[in-house]
């Protein structure tokens, strides 16, 4: 299984994204980590070239609605259907909105790597 882990927007806190990336690697997955300050366009272009099965989006600065919805829009435009999940600081009321956009699951603070691995194995 191949997964893209990306941070959109200007937020530079990488701990969560990196810990998840390392955890997925140790669970046997191939993980492409593209660092911070990715635009939605860069994220989708990477997803295309890497032909990933899943995309994990990380956001801590509150810009997730604008940025993630743009990612989903671009994926749709390119007719791509990887499994998209998100993590970071995302208020409860936004979780439902993101799910409506097609983001299957949001892993908030305190989520375990094991739960993310299980989710991916079950849904990809």
């Amino acid at each position: 299984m191949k997964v893209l882990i990306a941070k959109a927007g200007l937020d530079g806190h990488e701990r969560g994204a990196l810990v998840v990336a390392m955890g997925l690697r140790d669970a046997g997955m191939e993980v492409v980590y593209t660092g911070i300050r990715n635009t939605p366009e860069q994220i989708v272009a990477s997803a295309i070239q890497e032909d990933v099965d899943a995309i994990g989006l990380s956001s801590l600065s509150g810009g997730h609605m604008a940025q993630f919805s743009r990612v989903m829009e671009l994926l749709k435009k390119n007719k791509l259907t990887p499994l998209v999940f998100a993590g970071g600081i995302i208020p409860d009321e936004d979780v439902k909105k993101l799910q409506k956009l097609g983001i299957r699951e949001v892993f908030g603070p305190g989520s375990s790597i094991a739960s993310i691995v299980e989710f991916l194995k079950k849904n990809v």
Partner: protein
Amino acid sequence: MSELSKLISRLESGAPLPAELYAKTGRAHIVGITGPPGVGKSSLIDRLIEQYRRAKRKVSVVAVDPTSPITGGALLGDRLRMQRHSEDDGVFIRSLATRNHRGGLTDSTPAIVHALDAAGFDVVIVETVGTGQDEVEVADVADTVVVVLMPEMGDAIQRAKSGLMEIADILVINKSDLGATKAEAIHTSAKTGDGVAALMSAIAAHHNSLVKSGALAKRRARAARAEVIRLLQARGAATIMRALGQPAAEAVLAKVAAREIDPYDASEHLSAKIFGDAKRSSHGSTRSRRQTRRRG
């Protein structure tokens, strides 16, 4: 882009290269970039892409990283250093995990390089980690091999002993901003961009000299041979594994484990079954070794 990407995924899973594509290959300049981890290969490639794009050349990159032999997973972090090019239609970057193939590349790398060549890229860069004798496979695939080191890596002459130096067409000392060395090489700094234009020229010059001297054809013949051999070896291995799965073969293996027959006799026997070797031909040495052991 999407079609090409999906084709690469199929090749990665072991599918053969579509026959009609191979006829379209041979145009691209295949550049292998290898060297120990941490020297800045990816950052250097990022700069090279910038230069190639300025010259309006289309560039693709195959970035290979090792699969963990324990977990089977891989962290593919080379792309991060080239990410600013991801939206450029003239650039295609693909990260691959070795999936426990030894030698520095993946099983599918030759096929993927062909696919990118056929897709019209002027340059195909294959990036791999190379530290010693083992990781020289990139030489079988590339027209030009660039070995990247950095200053203060110890005696440059020491490096000459390693297989890496034997396959280098161009030697680069990156991170030149950190210090000077006397090695005869191209000195670059991916950080500042110094030396990258010179590297690109050197790669082009090497390509020209290969073409002019006829060496390119020889190299490509060697690469084709190596590729076919590898495919044959893979077939052979697959055949062997299939055969070993049979109950008759299992019975032979059980006898070896019980020390009723030795592995050499077992392999002779199985080989005859799988490949139809004549039993008697060149096995004399094996037999006498066995006899010697009994007496010893």
